């Protein structure tokens, strides 16, 4: 039985729940950014699994870090980590420090949708669809009333 105490089971806990791996350091942050398409667009296709997590192999990543003497491993032909991180910070309304600070880590560890933020549907056919920011000029003036419940 999954553990609960309340009558309505609203505090139900998964009995053998697996905790998702959190972003804690540069390597896990790079994995996050690669996984969700910030490093380069992800081919989001339900029949193709391999392209969705290009930096999964941490042992290779760590060896790359040791061999280059850098604190972070940079995938070849990809934007520098700092630039990618700044882009992530900007779109998440964080200070664009380019550093993996606590606020950025917290943002990466928030519950989120698994669909990549930057993706292509098929290779070499479509432009990558990056997360959009709104065109504020298109919104008409609206009433001041707060939204009502349906």
């Amino acid at each position: 039985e999954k553990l609960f105490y309340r009558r309505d089971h609203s505090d139900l806990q998964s009995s053998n729940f697996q905790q998702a791996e959190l972003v804690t350091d540069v390597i896990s942050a790079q994995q996050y950014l690669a996984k969700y398409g910030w490093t380069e667009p992800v081919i989001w296709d339900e029949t193709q699994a391999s392209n969705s997590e290009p930096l999964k192999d941490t042992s290779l990543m760590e060896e790359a870090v040791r061999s280059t003497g850098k604190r972070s491993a940079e995938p070849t032909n990809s934007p520098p980590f700092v630039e990618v991180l700044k882009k992530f910070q900007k779109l998440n309304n964080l200070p664009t420090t380019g550093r993996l600070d606590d606020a950025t880590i917290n943002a990466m560890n928030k519950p989120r949708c698994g669909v990549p933020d930057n993706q292509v549907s098929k290779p070499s056919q479509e432009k990558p669809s990056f997360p959009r920011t709104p065109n504020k000029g298109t919104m008409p003036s609206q009433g001041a009333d707060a939204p009502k419940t349906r």
Partner: protein
Amino acid sequence: RKRFLDLLMNSEKNRKEQEAFQNSGGRVFNKKLLKWRMIGEGYSSQLSINEQRYVFRLAFRMWSEVMPVDFEEDNTSPLSQIDIKLGFGRGRHLGCSRAFDGSGQEFAHAWFLGDIHFDDDEHFTAPSSDNGISLLKVAVHEIGHVLGLSHIHRTGSIMQPNYIPQESGFELDWSDRRAVQSLYGSCEGPFDTVFDWVRKERNQFGEMVVRYNTYFFRNSWYWMYENRNNRTRYGDPLAVSNGWQGIPTQNIDAFVHVWTWTRDDCYFFKGTQYWRYDGENDKAYAVDAQGRTYPRLISEGFPGIPSPINAAYFDRRTQHILFFKDFQVYAFDIVRNRIAPNFPKRIVDFFPAVIKNNHPMGHLDAAYYSYTHNTLFLFKGKDFWKVLSDKDRRSNPSLPQNGVLPRRAIAEQWFDICNVHTTLLRL
């Protein structure tokens, strides 16, 4: 089994690819009715099946309310005919190529034109709960992906990648509606009738005030339109039978509000009959204070007016009800209780076109006087023609009296008046 699933997925994918077309880099369905189903082996371990079904029905309805696509739950057709399947799973799940990560981080994912998977290691809850992750909010987000929307980093957007705890009564905001309508188009007319319901009320200070609400009717349902918010009321359309007791439940021809110093009467018209509506008691009169029984023949209440009519409205300036039938307009004098002299007239003569040949001509759907715009609008099909107001003519006296300006799409002025599937009319 894996090979079979691969084949099945590829054949389904090919079918969907054939049914979809690329539009500005995105992929969209090209059907007006999409079928969905809950995956039998993928029910949530935390919510009852009925709770899950209710949430998904509501989630699909919320999208359907803002786009010209209907969603229908289909548990009988072959799987290959189901457009969207929804299911819960943990880790490696449901033959999916992307594993879930356990509790935290990812809570769900979806595929364009495809299926939606929810991480059963997350604590999803029904809308009535304040705890956990709102299944409704996540479902609406994932359906957005299936429809072709990507993540949007904008406060308030349902397509934000991160889960924001649900404040009470979240809805699709203006930008989210425009985003999906950029893929699927806007909802369009025609309508049976459109009117402002005007009534007197006392405010919290005991003062008598006059308020109005705008209503659009089509077939057997109606919408209340919130002019100040440029959208319909959340949760509409509703069934006419629920909101307007005693009148025909569908295909109303016209609504007229006779509002003078001495009269405050509302009438619904359909076919050869009309009903008088009792606004205080929210139902049609069976018998009014004058002893008249309803429904009543139009020919008895409005001598000389033919039926059925296309449209009607009360002109407070002239104290005439204008009845529209085919290509003619009849002015009915409510004081003398007869047709005004020199009527009927051709609509195109009484309401001349400002731009030649840009005129509805006849067979109108509705004649709507809007208190928001202080203007009369003539509706036909998906379009409306604005009738020049006194204010318009003061600024340009060369314009003809009662002139109609060129047509515009109804959807350009009144937004998101969308049907939903009949199975979603009541959740």
